[in-house]
């Protein structure tokens, strides 16, 4: 992975950068992850996310949006995971979600510096209202960025829709209020 980091200061920015959604600002400016990194690594990263999406699609006969099975998740967020067939499917879905979180958190951890990571964590603590851990917020922003913006802004590719909807159903692990603040939007629901 390439490390081409922005010049940084310890002081967290308090105001939003004009023209950017907050999640973009967090990834690009607070964490300081370079566009070069995304250009060089978007392919392999997206390929992992595509595989995850394929698994989710294969498990759900319809679009991944259903609410037939739901259960309380971390911090009381209700998870609706689509048409889960049995415990085996649930295990697979757990794995897929963990893989997506791991991919995004790897980008956060390996492409930020100690300084930028600290700064971004502090920024999230101050700017985002959520009960979720700041590291989870950073990871959610990065995952959303990987789907929507990397290497350049584009509509959500069809093959990543299942991952997107799965995290929509989990309110991106951070809750709807934080999603709204950060500019993380759920996909429009599909009538099945």
């Amino acid at each position, binding site marked *: 992975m390439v490390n081409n980091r922005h010049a940084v200061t310890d002081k967290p920015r308090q105001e939003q950068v004009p023209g950017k959604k907050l999640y973009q600002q967090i990834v690009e400016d607070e964490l300081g992850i370079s566009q070069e990194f995304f250009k060089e690594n978007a392919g392999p990263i997206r390929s992992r996310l595509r595989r995850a999406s394929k698994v989710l699609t294969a498990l759900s006969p319809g679009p991944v949006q259903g609410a037939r099975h739901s259960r309380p*998740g971390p911090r009381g967020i209700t998870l609706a995971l689509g048409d889960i067939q049995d415990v085996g499917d649930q295990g697979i879905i757990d794995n897929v979600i963990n893989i997506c979180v791991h991919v995004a958190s790897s980008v956060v951890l390996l492409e930020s510096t100690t300084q930028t990571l600290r700064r971004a964590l502090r920024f999230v603590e101050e700017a985002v209202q959520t009960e979720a851990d700041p*590291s989870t917020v950073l990871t959610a922003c990065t995952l959303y960025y990987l789907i929507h913006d990397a290497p350049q802004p584009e509509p959500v590719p069809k093959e990543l829709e299942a991952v997107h909807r799965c995290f929509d159903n989990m309110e991106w*692990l951070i809750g709807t209020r934080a999603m709204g603040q950060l500019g993380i939007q759920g996909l429009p629901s599909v009538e099945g």
Partner: protein
Amino acid sequence: MPKNCWRIDVSNPSPYQRSDYVQVDLKTLGVDGPLDEQHLKLCRENKDGSLTEVPYQIDYPEGKEAFGGILSFRSEQTPAGPDDYSQIGATFVLEEGKPTLFHEPDNLSVSHYYEPAIAGEPADGFNKKWDKTRKAYGVKLHNDSFDFYISLVPHPKLPTEIDYTGSVTSVRHYGAPLPTDATDNMLSPFCTSPHKRWGQLTKLVFFPLAWELKGLNSVSLLGQEYELVWSYSGPVRAVVGLKSRPLTIRYDGASFFKPSHVDVRCNLYRVFSVYPKEACYVEELFVLTEDGISISFRPYYLSFVYFPEGVRISRARFEHISDYFAVWEYFASLYRGYGFAADSHVRELETKGHEIVWRLGLSHHSTCVHFFIFHGVLHGPLDPFHIIGHSGWYEKLYKPLRNVPLQERYPRIQ
């Protein structure tokens, strides 16, 4: 009861019904001679007195049949009993006879890495079959939850100064995401590090005689190789037995014994076992002289778990129950836990950067459990103590299912 027939009474010391594994020292049970898995049958006694055959296996972890075998089997639905092992929960009967053949389950195995590789083997000498006559430099054990590789040599085919001997150098947890550029997902889950390893024994310490005016006898285990003296994957567990090179401990008996100087030559034995389903291995440690006399010792452990900066670390440990601990590393709702429990006290536990070091108390025979725990996004609230404290320490070490009357393999009472 027929002549060659032995009764095994199993006691459950917990206030709840348990299905768990039992180990029985065949010598202490009175089973001697050439009887092995081909000539013994194990049955559970039902309430109506009838017998139902159950799978079992016999291991010789010291590699010597003279030291006797260890019988292991699973006791299903063992009724609850008092915690002093005073009540029999289930009875098994071991008898001479042709057993029904129980096949090795698909989810347990031991793989070997030999040097040099022979025709038909890949370059790393990988082979599922154990060949006592060949030199193995590594072994891999696996169950349906994880696999791990143990290095038997300091530098396994690597031009490095890092000494890996007797350490677990790779742990793959099947429930945790696997990084694309790494061979394990627990010891260095984000990017690989050459230093990563788990559970390396760096040294043993032996106590001097009471009147000797000197400190402890410390013997380094680094830089030496282990010999694979037992390898077997049966219907109950996958087991390997490792034997260190001879260690020499010098005792000075003056002025009570003549000759005053005695060099005791002994070997450290490490027995690694894996049972189905849980991402943990059980390690037994003991030191034996060539004729099987056990010597008490203190083992020192070193582990190195690599995480990038930013990952947070917390330690779960009760000072008043010092037999177990877990180190947790977490970021973004993904938790990775490294648990250790032993049947003696864990002392001098320190986390220094990526290193975790600790030692055990003086003992003739230490049994330890090494747990690798992955707690994902949807796994609910994390209890940092439960798995290592309950499954690891309480059920496997402090109050395991045992046959009664209670027996100890080492030190053997003559």
